[in-house]
């Protein structure tokens, strides 16, 4: 589903080159629920933005659903983002001027979908996240958990092949976070491929597989003592 090979991302200034990702390799199979963890500044978000085609990379290869994306132009990248990827952001990123219905509608409009189909998909997605009755509400009228559910509905409405979640519970309290996580697990059980970036070991432990990034590279927990302890602690917590 998502395969990066020897991928690198370099930020260059006049005097310095900074590697955000270096010789980065990852292979996420269809239907997997993968948690990407790592300390702050390790490159998690950079990985996610490249995986979501939000920005380009410097070297290596990236195949998304069998398509080599490095040479795609902006329109083609937008089309893939729209049709194959669903985003869930830490800050929800709902559009404050639009109500719940219109927020969920945004990606469907960019797909050029007809109004009746859009409406059906929006209501189905809102039904799934338990907010169908709130479709006329504005984001400011909802709790954080509800806003994140709307964001999930927005990501789901387009039936994406890949769901990318960036710290999806980072702005939520424990109870709301649990609800959102259960929703993600349910979505995964229904067959979606989910890649979730998180620094929360407890959250990561709920995923099928954990990928750890440090200094812009995927590291193997089994041989890296720095993350061994953290891995065990997380496992025991959910044991």
């Amino acid at each position, binding site marked *: 589903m998502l395969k990066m090979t020897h991928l690198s991302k370099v930020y260059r200034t006049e005097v310095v080159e900074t590697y955000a990702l270096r010789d980065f390799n990852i292979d996420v199979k269809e239907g997997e629920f993968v948690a990407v963890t790592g300390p702050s500044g390790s490159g998690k*978000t950079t990985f*996610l*933005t490249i995986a*979501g*085609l*939000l*920005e380009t990379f410097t070297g290596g290869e990236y195949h998304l659903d069998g398509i080599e994306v490095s040479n795609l132009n*902006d*329109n083609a990248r*937008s*089309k893939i*983002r*729209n*049709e194959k990827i669903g*985003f869930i*952001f830490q*800050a929800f*990123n709902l*559009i*404050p*001027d*639009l*109500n719940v219905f*219109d927020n969920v*509608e*945004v*990606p469907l*409009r*960019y*797909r*050029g*979908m007809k109004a009746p189909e859009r409406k059906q998909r929006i209501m189905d997605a809102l039904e799934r996240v338990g907010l169908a009755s709130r479709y006329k509400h504005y984001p400011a009228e909802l709790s954080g958990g509800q806003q994140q559910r709307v964001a999930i509905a*927005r990501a789901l409405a*387009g039936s994406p092949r890949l769901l990318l979640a*960036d710290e999806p519970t980072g702005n939520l309290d424990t109870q709301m976070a649990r609800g959102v996580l259960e929703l993600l697990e349910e979505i995964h059980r229904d067959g979606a491929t989910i890649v979730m970036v998180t620094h929360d070991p407890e959250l990561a432990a709920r995923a099928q597989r954990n990928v750890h990034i440090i200094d812009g590279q995927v590291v193997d927990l089994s041989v890296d003592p720095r993350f061994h302890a953290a891995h065990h602690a997380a496992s025991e917590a959910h044991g």
Partner: protein
Amino acid sequence: MNLPIRPILVALRRHKAGTVLIALQIALTLAIVCNALFIIHARLANLSEASGVDEPNVFVIKNQWAAERPTAQVDAQVQADLLALRQLPAVRDAAPASGYPLQGGGWDNLVTLTPDQTHPITDSAVYTSDEHFIDTLGARLVAGRNFRPDEVMVMGTQQSITPPTVIVTRALADKLFPGGHALGKSFYAMGTTPSTIVGIVDPLHRQGVSQWNKAYAGQALIWPLRADDARGIFYIVRAKPGQLAAAMREAPKALYAQSRMRIIDPKDGVQDYAAIRHKVYDSDRGMAILMGIICAVLLAITAAGIVGLTSFWVGQRRKQIGVRRALGARQRDILAYFLTENFLISAAGVLLGVVLAVAFNLWTVTRFELDRMSLAYVGVGVLVLLLLGQGATFAPALRASRVSPVEATRSV
């Protein structure tokens, strides 16, 4: 492209202040620009308005007497002057006059059909001259006859004489006696003595060109009077074709040869119609330029307002734009979003502007008797404002379209 008109309208409802202000600015600009364009066009059209004068061959001498004399002496001098002028080889004809078309200012009288009528029917410009006036101007007598020499009366300073015969313009004849048949009919334009219409000329412009008298445009009467004002008189001279320059050179010499007791200003005492027309429409030209500048400034201010508001909104919604891009918006979708948003605001503005423009014009029609504005001006104004809006939005919208989708992941 699936234009998100409903969501844009919904979003605009939550940004009422900026939206309403820009729409109002567009409305006011449209109302002012439409009417200004109309006035500019009317003023520019005036510049080529028909005077009824054979302008390439006619010139005017402003003759001031150097000393006051009795009316009889003045009249004798005037007759001698006219004879001298008419005898010049380059001159076809010459006439005395109290005023001339496109002079600027002039003599107007109110006109009634009965001597005791309290509400005048209309207003008419008044010319006084002799039987040479029509030929000298090159005006066209379309009905009736010219004055006979014996009908020409002499009127001295402070005197008030109403001749029994009059020649009127077609416009005045139609106003007084709609449906034609004005010849032989009488009216009152000064005192209680009627004047009977013996001839009709068409066209003959008034002395003044003021827009405020537009309703009376073309309404003029000619009385057979030599108004021998002790201060001075106008001599209108028609040169033979191609001999204008020679006639203008020789005419003052001929007059000075008759008598040195006169003043003909060497600078503008002798003026051909090109100079007369240029001078009298100076204010029209100035007004057209001023209106043009006002229009340009207003349009520039409106464009600046739109650029400012759109730039502000783009800056304010940078994250939102990034989110839209992340969700699949192409650059052209973002561009279209802002252009559509501006179009909707501009459309609301121009709708209100059309109402204001027409209302303002109706006010000027009733208040100043100006013409009704053609809706073509409103159409042009609407088009200009809509294009201006789109043009002013384009640069900030283009900047917005270049916002990277990665903005969606940046914290505020």
